[in-house]
């Protein structure tokens, strides 16, 4: 026995594996008590993590419709930029759902996504707004962007160098301080003070930022409204403060042109943009693109001023002037501030 130890081990391991691989019950659902489902078509969706509640709800709702009842969606989640690069490198996506348009336009040039994916605005069926997330009771009484600059206030937001979706967070105060881009210097002045005096950590992603905040770091977290809602639903003692002026987050959705299941993907997207789909999206905490549905949902407070990416000239311009790795103004501020 002693001399055949290693081969015994190998045999044991192999046997165990074969046995357990025959373990029944494998499937895609990660809900306790969930069952492996059956569907004739499965759409592979590559999405950014924050979209999970919306996509779960949309998938379930779609399966309940006559058109979608043989279609299931299976979603891979991750940071928006990471997912986008993965699809670029060949990941088998049928549909992409990303945090911001640049992550989709990256896929246009190699032909993975059609150039007209957002032609009639259909590329952005839902989104959110940038909000301030504070501890329960709002102990530091933070209500607006200027409050963040009060002495001693610590702000948590991901580093825009390592998180594409972090850019939304910084565009909100920038747009407000620069009056929609008219006075970029003023906007940058605010960001500079924020980054230099009030940001102590540089989480690489939204999830890291939220977890950091959850574990006690910082007084306020900049985040998506829907992510904050989800965290509160899950039991975190947070409160959401919507500043009077903030930014509209427009997520980016597109079917993959090179996929075999393109027709089914487009059908699903049609559903998402339909009133029924928009209603599902709203109930999951996201702001629907459909104004009628949005108006019905009064729980979504309307800030005094909601800036949009178009106000600032569109993503290509914003990326070039603010977030470009070499010449972006905000990128430079981040690099300077932490020297």
């Amino acid at each position, binding site marked *: 026995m002693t001399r055949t130890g290693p081969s015994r081990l190998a045999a044991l391991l192999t046997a165990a594996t074969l046995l357990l691989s025959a373990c029944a019950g494998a499937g895609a659902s990660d809900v306790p008590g969930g069952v492996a489902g059956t569907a004739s078509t499965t759409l592979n969706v590559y999405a950014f993590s924050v979209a999970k509640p919306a996509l779960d709800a949309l998938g379930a709702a779609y399966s309940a419709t006559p058109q979608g009842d043989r279609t299931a969606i299976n979603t891979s989640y991750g940071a928006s930029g*990471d997912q986008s690069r993965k699809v670029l490198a060949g990941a088998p996506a049928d549909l992409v759902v990303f945090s911001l348009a640049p992550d989709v336009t990256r896929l246009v040039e190699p032909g993975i996504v059609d150039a007209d994916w957002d032609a009639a605005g259909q590329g952005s069926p839902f989104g959110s707004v940038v909000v301030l997330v504070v501890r329960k009771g709002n102990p530091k009484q933070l209500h607006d962007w200027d409050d963040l600059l009060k002495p001693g206030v610590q702000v948590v937001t991901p580093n825009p*160098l*390592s*998180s594409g979706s972090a850019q939304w967070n910084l565009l909100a105060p920038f747009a407000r301080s620069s009056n929609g881009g008219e006075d970029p210097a003023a906007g940058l002045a605010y960001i500079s003070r924020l980054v230099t005096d009030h940001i102590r950590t*540089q989480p690489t992603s939204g999830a890291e930022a939220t977890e950091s905040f959850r574990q006690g770091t910082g007084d306020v977290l900049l985040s998506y409204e829907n992510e904050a809602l989800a965290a509160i639903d899950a039991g975190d003692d947070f409160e959401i403060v919507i500043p009077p002026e903030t930014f509209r987050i427009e997520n980016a959705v597109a079917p993959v042109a090179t996929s075999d299941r393109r027709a089914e993907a487009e059908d699903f997207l049609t559903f998402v943009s339909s009133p029924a789909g928009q209603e599902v999206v709203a109930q999951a905490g996201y702001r629907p693109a459909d104004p009628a549905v949005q108006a019905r949902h009064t729980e979504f407070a309307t800030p005094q001023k909601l800036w949009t990416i178009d106000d600032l000239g569109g993503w290509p311009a914003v990326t070039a002037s603010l977030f470009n*790795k070499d010449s972006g103004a905000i990128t430079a501020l981040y*690099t300077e501030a*932490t020297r």
Partner: protein
Amino acid sequence: MLALGVVLLWVGVVVALPLAALAALSVADGPLGFVRAVTAPGSLAALGTTLLLSVAVALVNAVLGTVIAWVLVRDSFPGKRFADALIDIPFALPTIVASIVLLALYGPESPAGIHLNNTRAGVLVALAFVTLPFVVRSVQPVLAELELDAEEAAASLGASNWTTLRLIVWPAIRPAVISGTGLAFARAIGEFGSVALIGGNLPGVTQVTSQYIAQRIEVGDPTGAAAVSVTLLVIAFSVLATLRLLARGQRRAVA
């Protein structure tokens, strides 16, 4: 030899080829681009932080890892098996979980009142956690194989424990300690997941090179990322090679 051929093929496909592709990527902007990417202020700061902390943690675990290996091999006490089992856990625990847990233990809400978040000390703790098994598991088998005759002979001749340690035990385990320390160092400089939350990713203070590399990928600079990666590789590799040479030299001296 067939054996050698198979080995070379395996190591080639699994290790050498991907790294070759990486090296090719790193010079896609030419040698000047490579140098520029590596000497960027952010890159240098991250490298400095990484090397400093990795050396520190490797030395700490060299000493304590050897002590632990000694205790596990030569000592006996109730619960020794349990202690032995603990050693491999850092390997099996995904770095995300280590990250969350370390922040829970040593972050702002630390139950023990120890706040190491956003500090180098916090990063050190995370690195010590993930590199602990290397020295222990490197020294353990060698110590277990060590015949006690030489030590007993020395004792019967009147040698003190310290002399025995210095002249008999240490030379026998030194290669393993050095090798384990080198591995701990190499692992530490590449560590990513576990330091993320507790370190806070502060450039120049707690941002380690792997975080910097990930950042470069995110901003759309895969070539720069590859360049810094290759640099990190070369550093780790040089250290390991040097230690290997030292160990071989000592083996010859002892033989």
